């Protein structure tokens, strides 16, 4: 093999996909490194950015969600223990509303099926199917009984709540989605 033939090697490898990792794959690898599992039930990975693995463009988790996240009772609750039975209310830019009830670990998921518009009924598993893709920005509020927390800003484009609500508050996160302030 002469030197000239070696010059073609990187192009040949790139052509068969051996060079580089897609950003989505890199993100998936990072979540696995942080402890995310892929057992597939509705109660796995509370607090993780769901749509990183359940997105329209990249879905190693099979199910595709239009919006998904985890609700907690308090801002400092353990990230793996969310609040069951919280109602997540969403109103999109076209005024359409949906409600979804969080499951045993606080997870909720909104997926889209074709067909007639579904007004949205929460389920015990934390899932709901609607007949339309939400139009951003989204207005969101969470209730349970008499408790209510309204999101102060709108969701402009992100489908994973944990993208902005990743665990403890930091420079890049506003902290968990919660219903009650700590100490109340």
């Amino acid at each position, binding site marked *: 093999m002469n030197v000239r033939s070696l010059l073609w090697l990187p192009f040949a490898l790139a052509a068969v996909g051996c060079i580089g990792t897609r950003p989505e794959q890199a993100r998936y690898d990072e979540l696995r490194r942080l402890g995310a599992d892929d057992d597939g039930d509705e109660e796995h990975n509370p607090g993780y950015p769901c749509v990183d693995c359940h997105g329209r463009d990249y879905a190693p988790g099979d199910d595709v969600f239009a919006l998904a996240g985890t609700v907690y009772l308090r801002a400092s609750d353990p990230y793996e223990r969310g609040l069951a039975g919280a109602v997540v209310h969403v109103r999109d830019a076209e005024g359409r509303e949906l409600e979804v009830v969080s499951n045993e670990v606080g997870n909720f998921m909104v997926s889209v099926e074709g067909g007639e518009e579904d007004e949205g009924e929460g389920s015990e598993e934390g899932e709901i199917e609607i007949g339309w893709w939400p139009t951003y920005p989204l207005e969101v509020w969470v209730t349970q009984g008499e408790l209510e927390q309204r999101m102060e800003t709108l*969701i*402009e484009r*992100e489908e994973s709540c944990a993208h902005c609500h990743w665990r403890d*508050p*930091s*420079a890049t996160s506003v902290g968990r989605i919660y219903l009650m302030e700590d100490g109340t």
Partner: protein
Amino acid sequence: MRRAAIAALLLTGCVADQGTVAVEPLDAAFYAANVQPVVGPSCGSLDCHGVGLRPLRIYAEDGLRIDDGLRGAPISDEEIGWNVAAFGGVDPEPSSADTHVALSKPLAVGAGGLHHLGDPVFASEGDPGYRCLRGWLAADPSALDACAEAEAALEP
């Protein structure tokens, strides 16, 4: 002869743009008091320009912070300074405030704007937010009213 040619070009508008407004040195104090309250909530969320690698990265109280310890605190002078620098950096040599990319990107395509991944923010040049941002870029004091109007429109 040469002087006469240059003078003739100037007179016929071939050298200097007519009807455009120059971008003045960006006033950080005006930005902090009037523009940040509009730009922060409407552009600087963590899923839009509150991302470190995005062009025109914007720090905001409820968005990206420059330090973990600033979460929950008012916007800092340092963050304001970097935001002003980001506006300058996104269009380093603007020919006019009206064509500044920070104005044309969020403006609807139908109104003369450019494609914006986050959808149009301003439907027209009459939008208070547009007039606020343009006024700051052009050092136009009349932007004050537009900024106040835009900020009021953001109230829940």
